[in-house]
């Protein structure tokens, strides 16, 4: 009887020690689910989800504050991926937050630009180059197409240009072929 109690106490102590040690040693910093959600989001940083960027939206989803269908740039595929990650039912994109547009980049008409730096301050990824009273220009490669530079421009010299298919980003198309007449007959 006594031995049994002692053995159990000893076991409890050892397990307690191991658990206590690993809870300190292997502590996960931050919320891993936020990182996972953030990895799915397209990082456009456009704020159409009504949060100031992708990370805040990821936090809001993780805390259950926001829904999974508020990200237009992520599109239907993004919603599906989020639904799978969160283990919730898929729902169509909430169009009150905007619709999915083809990927585009901002373009500054350099003749019209007055060099006010307002767009530079608005750009969430520092993709606009310029200085006060100097012409500004977009670093095309870094532009996420968030459109946040459009409203502050006092002379409306920024336009969004859809990225056209070119020799570099061209993709093989889904093979389409007509079904055989033979098949049609069998069916």
């Amino acid at each position, binding site marked *: 009887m006594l031995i049994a109690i002692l053995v159990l106490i000893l076991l409890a102590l050892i397990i307690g020690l191991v658990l206590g040690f690993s809870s300190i040693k292997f502590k996960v910093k931050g919320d891993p689910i936020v990182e996972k959600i953030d990895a799915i989001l397209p*990082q456009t940083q456009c704020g159409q989800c009504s949060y100031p960027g992708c990370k805040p939206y990821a936090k809001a989803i993780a805390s259950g504050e926001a829904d999974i269908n508020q990200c237009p740039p992520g599109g239907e595929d993004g919603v599906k991926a989020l639904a799978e990650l969160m283990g919730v039912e898929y729902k169509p994109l909430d169009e009150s937050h905007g619709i999915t547009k083809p990927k585009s980049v901002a373009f500054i008409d350099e003749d019209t630009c007055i060099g006010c730096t307002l767009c530079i301050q608005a750009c969430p990824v*520092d993709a606009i180059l310029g200085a006060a009273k100097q012409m500004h220009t977009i670093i095309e490669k870094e532009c996420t197409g968030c459109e946040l530079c459009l409203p502050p421009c006092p002379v409306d010299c920024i336009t969004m240009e859809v990225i056209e298919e070119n*020799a570099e980003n061209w*993709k093989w198309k*889904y093979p389409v072929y007509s*079904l055989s007449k033979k098949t049609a007959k069998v069916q």
Partner: protein
Amino acid sequence: MKIIENIFKFNGGVKAQTRKSISTKVGIQKIGIPKYLKIPLRQHIGNLPKLKVKEGDVVLKGQLIAEADGSVSAAIHAPTSGKIKSIEKILLPHPSGLPDYGVIIESDMKDKWIKKIPINWAKIGVEATIKALQNSGIVGLGGAAFPSHLKMGSKATKINTLIVNAAECEPYITCDDMVMRERSEDLINGIELVESLLGAKNTIIGIEDNKPEALSQLQFHTKSHKNISIKVVPTIYPSGDAKRLIFLINGIKIPKGKRSSEYGIQMFNVATIIAIYRYISFGEPSLSRITTISGNITKPQNYEVLFGTPLKALINQSGGQKIKNDNFIMGGPMMGFKLPSIDVPVTKAMNCVLGAEPEMIEDKKEPLPCIRCAKCAEACPVSLQPQELYWFSKSDQFEKAQEYKLFDCIECGCCSYVCPSNIPLVQFYRYAKSELISEFRAQEEADVARERNEFRIMRLERERQERAERNAKRRAQSSKEEKSKLIDEKRAAISAAMDRIKEYEKKK
């Protein structure tokens, strides 16, 4: 010279009708210099080269017109002398049919060379020679168009064996065969040169047994070379695929993600070796190539063509199509693609152009449902499960397809060839691959955007703190005394002003 007999047979592959003899009846002929040459900048794998000329410039044959940008890039030279007429978007021989930047040269028909400077590699050393090779514009001429200088120099790995890819396994294509028949001497000189640049001890030429004429030429020219051996491999497509050929010759299976150089083996195509030899020994950069024109063509044969020559000139020279259907295929019937337009120039990657035989035109085939006969799995030289990959690609389950090793597929087309239901299997894999690649690219871009956004947030926070610190410092600097003095001064100024107003009113 010795001939090695034993080979290691790989799984799968197909024995297709080779139809090579139709284009080997006549020797290599030259295509005359065209009036206008359209030279695309994108002719190789890697970065677009940087333009070095502008409209109106006069260029000589062999003059650099675009310089390699970074290490994964290749230079481009003027294939003949003339004037740069324009720099504009031109149609590429690419399945997309999309235009891309290129240089148009108006030829002066003089074909005047720039001063050729051979490289004395023994004097300047191997490293400098490899560096110089980047300016040669030489890329893999077997069709992959991978910049050759990248395959030459890596200090980390020691190359023991140079394998010369002379298999040329795809039906119809005979450009390497003809090169070996007519230019074996250059090839052997080139092999010796590349061998010493790589530091390789021996060379094995892998050649399919359907090229007896080329083989006898090689045997004749390698008589006195002890370190060069020839391995005759059976005619089974795709024996010319790099990893397949290495297995056939050495029995070494190179796993996914590894390069042959890690196993002490480096492989070059015959035409590439000759190009390297011509550049180093004679100072001639990559300006032309041998292209096979065959298939449904009146006079199928091989031509030496300057890069930038209109494909139409090649077609006209060979008499056009026998049965007119205006369909042309670039590459062989197994891996090639239908050219969206024939209004394209000949490029470094264009090893073969086929006039499409009626049975090669996809639309004429009638695909039937998959019956799961698994013939494709038997034929797959990479031992994949094509029927599963087909299923996943067709239903857009790309991640699943990736789990089934989609990216190990070499797109050889054996599965499509044996499919009794005529399903265009490879097209589905190409589709799935390019969808996945664009997903990877989007993910990379997103990662960059995240990093930049996080940095911006950090920067704004830092700036705010710095401003707060500056203000605090300024406040601390101005001591109390100074402050009260300032206030006194201000008060005095105000009272003086008030006095003036009073005086002014009194005067009134």
